[in-house]
């Protein structure tokens, strides 16, 4: 059935229509809450892009979503659904935190790369576990990654409450890292005010390029995609699905783990509990909306960054709306862009089939 639509419809019009539906339903909910949806949109857009600091925050949130979106996408290309971005990001934070706490005073050319590696290694490990379980033991990643989110949460709580907590403090936070390991703030440089917009965004964009090259241009990426489309064909082609599944989940976990760079190394400068704040799940929406392509993911991440930032401002200005509204929109985007993606595809295909037929007939008549 696929492939009958022109490319611009498939990657442009269709996602936009689905997105519009999600926003339409969101608008109806705003009406239900007794507010004017158009006014809400105006406030939201202003809150997200209206002034330097707002834009900085938008980009800062978007950076998180690029990482978690790429994580979901790379697993998807191997035919896997990674719902464990949340847990993998937590573990990535643990890696970054350990470097920050214990090696933060080292010179930054050493400590920052170490922190990046730690984020990837810890997050990657938390992705490798379900990957290995799927590849070798046949346990489905959908369930195992959900379960591992809870296990990661319990583990982090234990560590923060009992081990890594700053001595003499009540709330579970670590000591603040030495300043040398903080990622440079980009806000002041670009006139985006005192937002937490930082160098992790550059890392995120580099990750996009790397993922794109890997998935579409390399032999390993080819093998990964074969496994994602058909395991029997992979085995036939001499490709080990086990190996690819483990690689894909590890990379996926590593990308999710890198989200902690933005949050922990770029903004908080100390390890805290709950810094992932559901961003791992946002990655699902971002990947689905961005059709698992880095360019799409960057655009979708920007949209969600704007929603998160603009949503906070909106909650401030419209008392009937709180920040949870953004979570509703996120769910609706996943619903319309993901689960209901075939809903409009059928009618559109029929429409274009009729159009091509009509054009064909017209040509036949003139000929």
């Amino acid at each position, binding site marked *: 059935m696929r492939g009958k639509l022109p490319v611009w419809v498939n990657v442009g019009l269709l996602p936009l229509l689905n997105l519009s539906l999600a926003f339409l339903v969101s608008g109806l909910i705003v009406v239900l809450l007794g507010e004017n949806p158009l006014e809400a949109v105006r406030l939201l857009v202003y809150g997200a892009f209206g002034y330097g600091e707002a834009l900085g925050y938008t980009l800062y949130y978007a950076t998180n979503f690029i990482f978690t979106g790429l994580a979901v996408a790379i697993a998807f290309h191997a035919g896997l659904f990674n719902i464990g971005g949340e847990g993998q990001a937590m573990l990535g934070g643990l890696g970054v935190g350990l470097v920050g706490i214990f090696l933060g005073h080292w010179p930054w050319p050493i400590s920052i790369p170490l922190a990046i590696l730690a984020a990837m290694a810890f997050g990657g490990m938390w992705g490798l576990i379900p990957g290995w379980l799927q590849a070798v033991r046949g346990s489905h990643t959908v369930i195992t990654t959900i379960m591992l989110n809870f296990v990661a949460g319990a583990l982090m709580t234990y560590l923060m409450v009992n081990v890594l907590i700053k001595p003499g403090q009540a709330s579970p936070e670590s000591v603040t890292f030495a300043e040398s390991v903080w990622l440079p703030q980009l806000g002041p440089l670009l006139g985006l005010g005192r937002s937490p917009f930082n160098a992790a965004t550059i890392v995120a964009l580099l990750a996009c390029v790397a993922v794109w090259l890997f998935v579409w241009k390399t032999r390993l990426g080819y093998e990964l995609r074969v496994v994602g489309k058909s395991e029997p064909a992979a085995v036939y082609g001499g490709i080990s699905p086990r190996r690819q599944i483990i690689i894909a989940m590890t990379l996926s976990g590593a990308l999710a783990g890198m989200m902690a760079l933005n949050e922990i190394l770029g903004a908080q400068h100390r390890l805290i509990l709950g810094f992932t704040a559901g961003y791992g799940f946002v990655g699902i929406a971002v990947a689905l909306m961005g059709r698992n392509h880095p360019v799409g993911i960057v655009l979708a991440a920007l949209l969600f960054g704007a929603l998160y930032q603009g949503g906070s401002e909106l909650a401030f200005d419209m008392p009937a709306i709180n920040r*949870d509204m953004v979570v509703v929109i996120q*769910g609706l985007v996943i619903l319309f862009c*993901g689960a209901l993606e075939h809903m409009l595809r059928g009618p559109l295909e029929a429409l274009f089939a009729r159009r091509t037929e009509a054009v064909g007939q017209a040509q036949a008549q003139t000929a």
Partner: protein
Amino acid sequence: MSDVWIQLVLLADSTLRLATPLVFCALAGMFTERAGVVDIGLEGKMLGSAFAAAAVASVTGSAWAGLAAAIVFSCMLAMVHGFACITHRGDQVVSGVALNIMVAGLGPTLADAWFHQAGRINVTGPSARFTPIELPLTETIGQVPILGTLYVELLSGHNILVYLAALALPLSAWVLYRTRFGLRIRAVGENPSAVDTAGISVEALRYRALLVTGALCGFAGAYLSIAQNAGFQRDMSAGKGYLALAALIFGKWRPVPAVLGCLLFAFADAAQARLQGVAVPGIGQIPTQLIQAIPYLLTILLLAGFVGRAIAPRAIGQPYVKER
């Protein structure tokens, strides 16, 4: 001796209380999944119905109205899942995740807008909640040593939903294994083409399975907000829907083992609450977080085939498309 006995009975008692929403939810999931549709959305349906129950019960003052609202709302969510996965053949996991996330946001948003209590709804008043029921003759039977304690502390004194959960098990098992509906549900999860060529609509059948799931999840949600607790608060399902799903898989999609899984997980939860800060001889203090993680770890081990093997219904997760 009797002190230990009472402790054990109390532990069993709180296991029952904690198991109730899991039992409803796991049995709920059984119908959908046996019909061949993955239901990650148990969590969302439970949370959504907890919200609906609290909202309606607090306005009307009637627990039964709250329960009805919970069931209706949960069924609506199930129908959205059906619309996406059955009618439009969307990805079942994606749809479930979408509903879970949407509901997680919708509950606090609506609660905040309508009740102005920072995303919470308080349910007060005697008839707005399901309260404990004293079984007959507790006075007399309570006198009997050992068994008396069992009757009074364990069997008596629960709210009606706990008893309904106990009833839901034999009823679900009967429906699944002894009725026409159950036969068709089991068949459609294994080979939908066989059902289709037998002159039965695969879509209608799966929608009906989803309605059963919706109704049962409604009970689970209502239990959370207007029986176990006195109101709704954000994320109050706290992963119980996933836990129920785990129990369902743990029980290999069969009613009795799934409920045993629920009881096991509930027991871990109950024990955890009691072990908090208690030093176990020879081991020392067990971190509560470890005990909390046990159900999830167990499920992972099960899925990995280290404890038994879970074989899913054959057609699960695949949208039904006629062969060509």
